């Protein structure tokens, strides 16, 4: 009996430590990700860095891609969608210029990762996903991980979520070939919208839409992956 108890304790310990070492591995990877992929590329916003460090990205990808969750690239999440490269998530988050009292609308919940990151910074995140399966899975995951200030809706992001408008920031994570007018209308004065333009599997350019009174201005942001190549060219 004594031997059995000892064996049980050893087994439990092994389980505990192995799970701990798994956790440690992901935490280490996450810290590496922050340092090498995000800070090294110029992201300095403390809120963004803290949020990225807190959110366990590996829990937002499927089991088969878990070991690659902190790699420097996007990963497939099914239905032709991807979880964006960590740097893109950080870059978009920083660009929103959001503060803890803000309310943000996200179009394209996808895996739920971007919403989770934003939820660590702002008061409330509303997120809309058009693909039912993805939206339901993200809703379940966010609830299970206690991201209580995120609300997920299955629906057409084109119309935004008028009920909770206006928003301090709108982040569109699904690529679009137009900028929906209802989203601009639901943006607060001096609000910012970040929208990736291009096909969603080749996100190459982010667009910033700024609203000042009735005036709207767009700004093409740096084509993130190709900055060195493009900018090294001497005229």
């Amino acid at each position, binding site marked *: 009996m004594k031997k059995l108890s000892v064996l049980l304790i050893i087994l439990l310990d092994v389980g505990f430590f192995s799970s701990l070492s798994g956790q440690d591995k992901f935490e280490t990877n996450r810290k590496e990700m922050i340092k090498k992929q995000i800070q090294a590329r110029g992201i300095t916003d403390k809120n963004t860095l803290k949020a990225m460090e807190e959110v366990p990205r590996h829990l937002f990808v499927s089991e088969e891609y878990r070991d690659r969750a902190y790699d420097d*690239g996007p990963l497939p999440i099914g239905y032709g969608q991807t979880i964006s490269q960590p740097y893109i998530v950080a870059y978009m988050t920083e660009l929103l210029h959001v503060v803890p009292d803000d309310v943000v609308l996200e179009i394209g919940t996808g895996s739920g990762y971007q919403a989770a990151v934003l939820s660590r910074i702002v008061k409330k995140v509303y997120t809309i996903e058009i693909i039912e399966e993805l939206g339901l899975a993200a809703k379940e995951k966010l609830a299970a991980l206690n991201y209580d200030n995120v609300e997920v809706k299955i629906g057409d992001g084109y119309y935004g979520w008028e009920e909770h408008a206006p928003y301090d920031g709108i982040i569109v994570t699904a690529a679009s070939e137009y900028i*929906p007018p209802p989203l601009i209308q639901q943006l607060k004065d001096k609000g910012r919208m970040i929208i990736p333009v*291009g096909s969603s599997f080749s996100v*190459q350019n982010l667009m910033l*839409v700024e609203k000042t009174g009735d005036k709207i201005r767009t*700004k093409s942001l740096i084509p993130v992956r190709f900055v060195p190549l493009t900018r090294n*060219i001497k005229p």
Partner: protein
Amino acid sequence: MEHVNPTSSIRNHVAIGLISACIIAFQLILMQILSYVQWYHFAYMIISIALLGFGAAGTFLTIFQKKLKQNYVTLFPFLLIVTAILIPMVVGIANSKAVRFDSLLIFQDSRHIGKLILTYFIFFLPFFTGALSIGMSFSKFADQIGKIYFSNLIGSGIGGIVALLFMQSIIPEQQPFAVAILAFLGGIISLPGNKKTLFRITLSLSTLILVVFYFYPPQLTPSEYKDITRTMLLPEAKVEYAKSTPNGFVQIVSSPVLRYAPGVSLAYQGPYPIRKVVFNNGNWMGSLLQQPIKQNETSILDYTPQALPYHIEKIENALIIDAGTGENVLLALSHQVPHIITNESHPEIFNILNRSFAGFPQVQPHQTLSRTLLTLNTHHLDLIELPVIGSFFGNSGLNAVEPRYELTIEAMQEMWNKLSEKGMISLSCWMDYPVRNAYRLLSTICLLLDENNITRPREHVVAIRSWGAVTFLVKKSPFNLDEIDKVHQFCDNRMFDPLVLPEEQKIDRNKFNMLQDTVFFIHIDQLLSPDKKVLIHQYPYRIHPTTDNRPFFFQFIRFKQIPQLISSISEKNFPFLDIGYLLIILTFIQIILIAAIIILLPLSFKPWKSKHKKWVIVYFSGLGLAYMFLEMVFIQQFTFYFGEPTYATSATLSILLFTSGLGSYYSSTCRKNKIRLVLPLIIAAILIVYAFILSPILSATIGVALPFKIVIAIVLLGTPGFFLGMPFPIGIDYLAEKKSDDIPWAWALNGYFSVISTVLAIIISVEAGYFVLLLMAALTYALVSISNAWIKA
């Protein structure tokens, strides 16, 4: 040796014809299926795999020559029936979840490289068994090689036509079953009559299996990254219409959230229309216009930069190139253009276009390619408008090796010649990052102006920019101040920014749509300046104008850049950038290795003692290499000539194979003739002449009536085709005469070089052009001829 009576000999020839037809038809159908589930460039992979089957069959023959020959009578029908069963089976397996690869994940997920290689092997199987049956016949009846080769080539020629019929009349899932029937029939007619039990068992079993495939055809699932797949994920998305055509699988999809507003200005306040969308092979082709069309209704495209020409000039005659479903035609119509000519080459899309504008006599749609229409059109045009170039914000380069003849400098010159004095060419492109489309367009425009002795290009070019696209207008006469004012007004009303205006104009290029820096503007200015060549030369991507000789507008990668790009794959820095050409390179490397392992390696274990070794290597390798080079050149030239890619490809292949078949049949009569030694030299001479005259003849006769064009094509293709069919059987015949064991080696080497030459031909076309490819084919035939000196001695 078994005795073969005349009746069974005829049956054998028919069976060889059937299996040859089956293999070619399967090849074409598989290319179409892969274009649907993946992308177009895998067509080249299929040609290589098919030829790999032939090469591997040669090797197999070498190793098991004796047994195969001994059991020919039973093995031949058996192989045909196995091929018939394998065809639908491999399509099903390759499209199963466990095996299916995704082009866009190849550089992202190493498992997909494994799946791609596995797919090679799976597709290889029916080609191998089919080719083995033909190879066995060559080996068994080496003394009748001319006739066997004749049956093989005639069957192959017919196979091309049969494939078109199947593509037109049968749904894609059932097409593999339909082609399998050809091999099955070949197997049945060649079953030996003296083995009745074997006959019955084989017939019953194979029929049963094929019936199962008929009722449970393979499921074809397009890549999850294809437009159709993504669209079908939208709420209530449904396919309302589907039709298989030789030009692709057309589907029309509806969904209550499918909106059409590509790159529309933020100044647009109206609703974004919900539209049904047309897909061809799973790729977005256009949206269906709201019916009935109202001429006075403003098109949503009026809020895109493409509408600029209509706001600065009164357009009387417009040519809308490659109209698709007709959105640009509607834009012209809404601006009251009294005479609109337009073209669309895809027959099914053309029908949609034609129906949409049936009630508008001012719209004249033509079902042809734009270059043919340009040649035929006799009007002076105020506007020639091309569709928006590139994919929405950057593309993954999947169409990198697709020739685009409407964007070459020759095409631009033809357009320029058709312009009225106030006429304009309107060229629009989506912005891409790094910028490539806009720079290549502008460098083409500048070369066009140079060639027409315009020394001040800025007086003839206007460009504006929205948040997503750029439109260039090139005008035959200089833009005047009134027109420039209208450009400013249009930009202010639409929240667009001017990009290029005459030098004296001070412009704010960042008023509504800011760019992060001024690099883009600096480059645009440099391209309009005398030192544009410096930028064209130094820019990391190819942005020089394309030509009819190298018409690959979307191939931007420089060859020397490839190692750098490959090294960055591991850094995951360019997961989906310009992978089309890289996939071709990857296919080439893989096919060289796989073909070497499958075809050459097994042979290397068997000692090859021969007096003719050197000759066999040069002669048969050269023939394999050069024939495929020529096929590629001829397909491109005649696609341009006929203005219709799929039928032109099939017609070219059929004429070439048919006349080669005649040549091989005739070759048996000149086996003793010394002309056989210089025959490759005659071919080389014809090809050198062709390098200089083919293109001018085709250009000069492009406007003649179709029946004449067909006759011209038969003469131009048939002449070299006839001679091209002769050297291979003559060579085999020579080896048979010498009772040499070299035949399987000859077959294998020919196969190996055919396999690699298909993809190599694409790379040479991209890097050096079709002219060089044709000259290389001529040079190869000259070398083959020189090698004949070894046997002469």
